[in-house]
């Protein structure tokens, strides 16, 4: 058959025309690949490696290339889910309700279990009945605020993430 271009083929171009580009960093491993995030009308339309990065020069691994699906994903939880003690199901709750309740539970545990002095009389000002885990996939700023509030503000000792060595 002869080579006939259809109207669509003749007009074809990339969907990135007219898109807004933001700079990001891949959320998976620690290599630190730069990503370009493209949006149109407030919707994510493409994520790919940033060519100018000296680290990845536009390349990504399969996980990095998957970032689009990580963000734009049907399985993502979009509302606060609450499970009452001994319940067998989730309930959807307002964000503010959850925040208030978490703050109240935190204060209750701190007020009950805060230790000002140890047995030898040394000032310790610590709290052992609350704990935190997580951080290696969070932003530096988030880790900073977690440590600052939970240790510096509340006196929690057990603040950890998977980075141990």
């Amino acid at each position, binding site marked *: 058959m002869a080579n006939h271009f259809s*109207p669509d083929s003749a*007009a*074809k171009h990339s969907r990135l025309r007219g898109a807004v580009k933001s*700079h*990001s*960093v891949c959320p998976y491993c*620690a*290599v*630190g690949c730069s990503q370009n*995030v493209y949006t149109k009308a*407030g919707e*994510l339309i493409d994520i790919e490696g940033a060519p*100018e990065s*000296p*680290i990845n020069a536009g*390349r990504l*691994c*399969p*996980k990095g290339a998957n970032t689009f699906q990580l*963000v*734009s*994903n*049907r*399985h*993502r939880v*979009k509302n*606060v*889910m609450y*499970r009452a003690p001994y319940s*067998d199901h989730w309930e959807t709750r*307002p964000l503010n309700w*959850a*925040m208030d309740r*978490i703050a*109240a539970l935190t204060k209750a*545990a701190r007020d009950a279990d805060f230790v000002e002095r140890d047995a030898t009389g040394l000032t310790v*000002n610590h709290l*052992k009945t*609350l704990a935190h885990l997580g*951080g*290696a*996939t*969070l*932003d*530096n*700023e*988030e880790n900073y605020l977690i*440590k600052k*509030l939970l*240790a510096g503000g*509340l*006196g*929690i000792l*057990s603040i*950890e*993430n*998977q*980075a*141990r*060595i």
Partner: protein
Amino acid sequence: MPGLGASFGRGAATTFQADLAASDCILIMGSNMAEAHPVGFRFVVEARERGAALIHVDPRFTRTSAMANLFVPIRAGSDLAFLGGIINYIVSNDRWFKEYVLHYSNASAIVNEAFVDAEQNNGIFPGLDPARHAYMKETGSWNYSTLPDGIGAVERDPSLQHPRCVFQVLRRHFARYTPEMVSRVCGCKAGDVVRVAELLCRNSGRERTSAIVYALGWTQHTTGVQMIRAAGIIQLLLGNIGRPGGGIMAMRGHCSIQGSTDVPTMYNLLPGYLSHPDAVPQNATLDEYIRHGRGFANARNCSASGFWQEEAVLGYWSHIGSFIVSLLKAWYGDAATPDNEFGFQWLPKLDGDYSELPMFFQMHRGGVKGLFLIGQNPAAGAPNASLNRAALRNLDWIVVRDWFEHESANFWYADPTAGDPKTIKTEVFFLPAATNIEKDGSFTNTERLLQWHEKALDPPGDCRSDTWFIYHLGQRLKKLYAHSTLERDAPIKNLTWNYSRTSPATLPDGSQSRIADEPEVEKVLQEMNGRRVGGELLTGFGELKADGSTACGVWIYTGVFPAEGDNRAHSRNPALNGATYPGWGFAWPANRRTLYNRASADPAGKPWSERKKLIWWDEQQSKWTGFDVPDFEADKHPSYRPAMGALGMDAIAGDAPFIMHPDGRGWLFAPFGVRDGPLPTHYEPLESVVKNQLYATQNSPTVREFRADLNLLAKDVDPEFPCVATTYRLTEHYLSGPMSRFNSWLNELQPEMFVEIDPELALERGIENGAWAVVRSRRGAIEARAMVTPRIKPLLVDGKTIHQVGLPIHWGYAGETVGAMANDLTSLVADLNVSMHESKAFSVDIRAGRLGAARVPKAIEAAIRPAGTDNPIRDTPEFAQPEGRQQRWGLKRG
């Protein structure tokens, strides 16, 4: 990361990934870089293509091995013996870099007379308290022999002949790590040790450099810190630290894992590697804390005297007072005054180990009420996951912040090994989180590089950034405590917490963000960077003061935000400057890309060779110059020698590149900083299939066990578990799966949990490729599909055939693909330095068949396409729509 910290001064990779391309020989060991870090691996491939030798030493032949020039299989857990063999080869064949070692390492220092090497005492160093599994008593002997002349005066023998000089101690310590011995321990050929050592030696020296790459294959052992120490010793002996193409590249696992150690969500650290104060008299006041310094933390419970004391007065850590006071000013603001020790007493004091493993052990026994779980999945992704799940069931409440309903969120109903939800008390809050493209912030990658990511769009629904969560939780708590007059509530009341927006929340397209109360993240980074109190931002940590006039949250990050509007983490100039990319992001400290780069020049300040030059002393300008920010005082002449009794940086000589160490040298022998011995020593994993060939002591004498019914161990060569198991990551998945098993594009690439075994073992046990097999450890049993492959080879270890079993870590009972958890087999044991577990080597048995469990994990329905792809992309004509979306709709014309 005390392995690197004790060797060189800072617990972080000494180099950057792109620099691997400049290497002449790369040894990858304890890392499967091609699979776990494919994009970083491109620099390794580049080096190989230029003719560099690429060596992979690993229990399994992986995608990294496939690219290597030389692959050496070894038994999982035997790495330290192999590295010891290399050290022995270098030393006994006189292949070390003389001038480098003499000037830049502590080879010439004379070790304390009381020191008795492990070699003389069955593998045990002086000072062990066996009951407490720790070196407690005579660790003062792990020390230099000091001269009475004053502080920092160490007895030395530049001829390296003194029997107690570090070099001779090292030589004797590793003398029995011969190729034959290594072969017996590791199961490799004796010739392979020689081959690897020879390649490293030939590719090191003035003209050439070798690099070592490691990852969790080294860290997840009870001797992991010492494996890294051994690599440090090799690189010091060969003169590869601080030089282009050299160094030790720690390939870490998560996008900001380096950041989460620098800005620590870790119990024992304050930001910038300051030690978290202990509940001991030596830390009772701010003055005491400053006087004892950071070295004290690593010497804790050890000797009252020792070289650690010098750290607080000699070298860069002598500035510790400025760092801690500035931190307290950042946290407590105006309430931090000289009169109240700048609020030092408000910091909680440590009275034990509160790291992850003890945390969960304690939780499973009761005693922890609430847990904030932010972006982590211990129900599947941490050692002895079944104990962890028991721990979660024992909480009063848990806050889970994540994107998907993973195993640690649905443990109360979806865990097939748990009981009825109606018996589980835990109150669960699942707060959906924003992804990184839905928020502003910075990550610190594996090469200490801070990179900023922009908010590209709003997160859906009630999803919020973790900054939003912690900020608003703080706001609420401050309100709840606002009227308290109790002294104990002073820290939360006085905590500075001003991150509300001063600029409107807009998205990149100029539209208004839906989340108006999102805090202003750059304000947080500015606080971390530091500023003069009430004044301008700081440009470097040299400006920090101990008098309360500066406030700085993370001193090692100072310079990342040197002026308003100048966020260097967001700097995107990709220009190559000789050997580095100084305009891309910001590398701590002070934007140095290669740490200890003073060592790239000879003692006189000239590059060791033209080929390997990085920084050098410019006599005309009278300063250090070159392709990188000097990791040294910029105007300190190479010939500078400290006067007797000099303090601080004045005590560091002009030819001493390791400025964080009080003696300015790299440590072959670590006088402090490592709690389980000043020299690496091979011990078998706690669960091993063979006896320790090198010492009468089977396991590390300092390893900690957590005794519980859910955490039984198969110690001392248990014949019931004859195979060596090791866990690992695949390219196609991530951690325990929360970021990959909800993604069909990744699930189709690796859809099921499998176990890799060699054909011989498969034949012996009647296991067919693709069929089910049951793997059992002392903690439990799991089922997985068998991957029978010649890539795994049985090894001959001390005359005995050893089979290895490979277990990917990626599955669990939540997500689109589900499967058994390798971590249901691993155990809670901890090394003394960093409480690290031993998931990379433990004992199992394997048989054909299935478990026949009553309940099996149930997958959620797969979403074969991303959300949002049901409709055409807006403002885009049909012919520019993605082909896949066109397929979805078919043709809709007219």
